[in-house]
């Protein structure tokens, strides 16, 4: 695997809402220079990212209903449509995990379908906050995602404000890969800070990595 191939597995992430537009522009320019698969950002910065990254191999990946997920599917779809209209190429949205734990599976399939429809053909990843789920809940989340045609299941928001949140692990990757099979791809996010861990996850079959350490990870490749 060369640096370009590695970079193309990385959604280089910055979800800091206090970032100035100038600092965001520099971040996007660096991401393009490294050829990351995408920049994973808050919707407020999508317009700027789309303008800076036009013509590059780095896409714009908008975080929807992030990080609090107990929002109606119709509003997740509205936020998705808004981000797409502003230039988002990919959508990472957070599943309503409280509804998942309450057994509201039909609602969640409908939510996923609404987001996929609003994304209008663009890649959709659903974040299931695996750190907060029992295995049967993780299975239900994956079934819901696959039923609705979501393209990726993503392990975690990585949002440090959640008191029980933990870094993603190799076991998380094994579990999600087993649960989705060949029906969807797996993105692991949260706690990926070094090249060795990144390569280990990719070797298992993880298709995308969410990290704010993309530069260090790519630079660390021999």
């Amino acid at each position: 695997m060369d640096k370009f191939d590695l970079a193309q597995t990385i959604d280089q992430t910055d979800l800091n809402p206090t970032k100035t537009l100038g600092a965001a522009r520099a971040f996007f320019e660096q991401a393009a220079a490294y050829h990351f698969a995408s920049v994973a950002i808050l919707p407020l910065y999508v317009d700027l990212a789309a303008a800076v990254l036009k013509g590059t191999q780095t896409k714009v990946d908008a975080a929807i209903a992030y990080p609090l997920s107990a929002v109606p599917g119709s509003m997740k779809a509205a936020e998705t449509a808004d981000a797409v209209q502003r230039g988002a190429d990919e959508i990472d949205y957070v599943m309503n995990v409280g509804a998942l734990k309450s057994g509201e599976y039909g609602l969640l399939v409908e939510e996923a379908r609404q987001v996929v429809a609003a994304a209008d053909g663009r890649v959709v990843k659903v974040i299931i906050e695996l750190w907060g789920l029992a295995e049967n809940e993780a299975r239900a989340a994956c079934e819901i995602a696959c039923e609705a045609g979501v393209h990726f299941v993503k392990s975690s928001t990585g949002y440090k404000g959640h008191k029980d949140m933990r870094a993603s692990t190799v076991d998380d990757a094994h579990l999600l890969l087993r649960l989705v099979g060949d029906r969807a791809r797996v993105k692991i996010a949260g706690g990926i800070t070094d090249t060795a861990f990144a390569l280990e996850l990719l070797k298992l079959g993880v298709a995308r990595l969410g990290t704010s350490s993309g530069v260090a990870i790519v630079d660390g490749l021999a």
Partner: protein
Amino acid sequence: MNRAEAARRMNTSIIGPTVTQSEVRDFVLRARMYPLAGLAVEAHWLAFTHEMLQGTPIHTVGVANYPLGGASLDFALQMTRWCYDHGADEMDVNVPIGLLRSGEVDAVRRYLQQLVRIAAGRVVKGVIWSDEMADEEIVETCQLMVECGVPIVKTNPGFKHVTSFHVVPLIKEQLGERLKVMVAGGVRTTQQMLELFDLGADIVTTSTLWQVLDALPEA
């Protein structure tokens, strides 16, 4: 200050990534035994909570563009409108600090004015990250809120943000009664709550409501 007097100046919340319906129900059932000012939930639980709080003085509080303030401004306004239409009596909505730091003051001004318009007389609180802002920045942001008619500043959204007590007199000395101050983030004890009221806080919020209130005399 007795328990009821304190409760009337307090908010609480049940907001988190894994909160279930039964957890919201149990929390609201317990909270409504106190004459609180407000109880905050995410949008999905607004109608449910609003119905449970019927007959109590407790306002159902919704959140939008929260806790980060990174939504597109158009969508943040759309979400705010949706919440008021679906059970929110009040809204806590984040101010986009990144835009302010980028000099986009006019855009933020229009956003705040729109929030107040959508609120249509109902309470809307502008939420900031005071723990990541310099004092001058806090005061300027609060002055902008006053200019736009936002009645209350919420000093932090919680989620591990902790409000320094000095922020209360900082805002009050500059803006007096033109802007109410709600302290959120890091309030865990009765002593902290009482100290904040003494410093001039109008409202205090804590997720450890029972611990903070039950230590006070009932009447």
